[in-house]
């Protein structure tokens, strides 16, 4: 009975609280330490890397030699451009196509709305299989084309449903008054609906962007030409499979130790996500996605 009461619930005793804190701490450390290790090693001096036998947690000094060799115009530079192109162009196309479809499906009087919605919803229930999808991509001539990384995954049915739910929750009076003022569907969509949907557009856009940036399977499946490889495939070849990166591949004579080059490649593929992560996070708090899913 001597327990402290917080928000109407008795506070647990200190052993329980200590246990919880410990579990949480271990979990968080398991997430953070790998990132710190990789970033530190990519900038650590050679001598320290060799002494530690691989990974360094606390670099004694900082140098960017590894990054200079990566950006000298070799394999990694090219892969970076491929990944940036796929992410930027893919996200813009995905957002445009998904929003148009979601808007049409959100209009109450749209005569073809019901059947098209069923087509979208039903596609989430099954996956078409690796081989048949490969044959379709091959059939439309996308094999060994950079567009194979964009076109097959351009529309996510799930994202369309989330966008539609958001558009439907916009107050009807606004679109109705636009119509009375003589605005057509295109104007209503472009001048009324889109500006009101910035929050959901940025979340869905970031989700698409992360998916494009991280795409590995489609690149592995559809691209034989290593000139078209995105960063993820380069990462697999030179970091996971430990293939040596020489001056021929890097396009420079400057050669820091493999360990720091490898870690620098990892950092280059992680950092863009770390940069957009705070933006993504701000919207989790608003519950944009969970709200839409439950609705």
């Amino acid at each position: 009975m001597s327990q402290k009461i917080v928000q109407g619930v008795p506070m647990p005793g200190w052993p329980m609280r200590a246990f919880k804190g410990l579990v949480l701490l271990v979990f968080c450390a398991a997430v953070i330490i790998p990132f710190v290790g990789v970033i530190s090693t990519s900038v650590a001096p050679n001598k320290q890397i060799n002494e530690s036998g691989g990974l360094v947690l606390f670099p004694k000094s900082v140098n960017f030699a590894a990054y200079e060799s990566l950006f000298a115009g070799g394999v990694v530079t090219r892969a970076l451009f491929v990944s940036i192109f796929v992410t930027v162009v893919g996200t813009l196309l995905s957002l445009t196509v998904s929003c148009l479809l979601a808007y049409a499906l959100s209009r109450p009087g749209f005569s073809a709305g019901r059947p098209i919605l069923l087509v979208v919803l039903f596609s989430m229930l099954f996956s078409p299989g690796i081989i048949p999808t490969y044959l379709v991509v091959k059939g439309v001539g996308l094999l060994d084309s950079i567009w194979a990384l964009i076109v097959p995954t351009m529309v996510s049915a799930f994202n369309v449903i989330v966008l539609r739910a958001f558009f439907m929750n916009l107050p009807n009076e606004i679109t109705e008054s636009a119509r009375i003022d003589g605005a057509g569907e295109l104007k209503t969509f472009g001048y009324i609906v889109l500006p009101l949907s910035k929050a959901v557009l940025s979340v869905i856009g970031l989700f698409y962007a992360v998916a494009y940036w991280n795409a590995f399977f489609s690149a592995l499946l559809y691209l034989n030409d290593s000139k078209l490889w995105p960063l993820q495939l380069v990462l697999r070849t030179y970091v996971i499979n430990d293939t040596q990166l020489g001056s021929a591949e890097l396009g420079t004579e400057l050669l820091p130790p493999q360990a720091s080059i490898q870690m620098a490649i990892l950092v280059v593929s992680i950092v863009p996500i770390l940069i957009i992560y705070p933006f993504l996070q701000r919207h989790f708090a608003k519950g944009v996605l969970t709200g839409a899913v439950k609705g």
Partner: protein
Amino acid sequence: MLQRSKTRQQQQLSLGQRLLRDKVLLLFALPGTALIVAFHYVPLLGNVIAFKDYQPFLGIGGSDWSGWENFAVIFNGDPAFLRALKNTLILTCLQSIFVFPAPILLALLLNSLFSERIKRIAQSILYLPHFMSWVIVVALFQQMLGGGGLLNNYLRSHDLATLDIIGNSELFHVLLTSQIIWKDTGWATILFLAALSQIDSQLYEAASVDGASRMRQLWHVTMPGLRGIIILLFILRLGDSLTVGFEQIILQQQAVGRDVSEVLDTYVYNNGVIGGAWGVAAAVGLVKGIVGVVLVLAANKVAHIFGEQGVYSR
């Protein structure tokens, strides 16, 4: 009044007239619908090659029909197929036992924190791995636990025996499971936390006034609040039970060999795209897909029998 006159107007228009009226909206919907049809529904037709002796240079139409021949690996129990099936089932069991409940426990822990600030910081950290690709996750695990990784360097510098974790075929299934836990547990708490926030706090107060201990509150107030979402996610998980992670496994297959790492998806990829046995691979993929849909429908049925809502209502 307005509503009624509108519907009457709609009834008067023929389908053709209505489609003509909606031509702008149809145009809006066209590209997205076309892409979904092209890359979700058209491939379904491509499954006919499961019944053909498919030769790429002849095309689907030109290849000969072969009946159920391609399905022989399944019905006759080809050793390579059985190996893939066995690994898939082992991994799916491990995932159901260890991966599925992890976010529920973590969400309960996060929810029971009194400091909003600590909760928010922990969430920011724990959600992060979800946004990393499998290539990055596998590389990070190598750097941490591999032969030259952080853990073994530490052990070596303190003259302790090193641990052979990465590339050890005996530990491969455990490694895969722990990678999934590391990557997705934090993110998966989102849905459970949303459900927990919906529980009326008066229920807890009433329970504690009635003398319910914290354990009893957990059992009689919290768990009923989570039951719907847990059942929903378990049904979806069941439908995916033959899908145990393609990218993750293909990235690490070389190091441990196919005996422990071949699963149905990698079997399809290795035999079809790499090995050229298109028909057999498509047959295995087709059966896998059908089993998945059947499992979801069956699990949903069971949920209905027990009076739960499931994925869709009756």
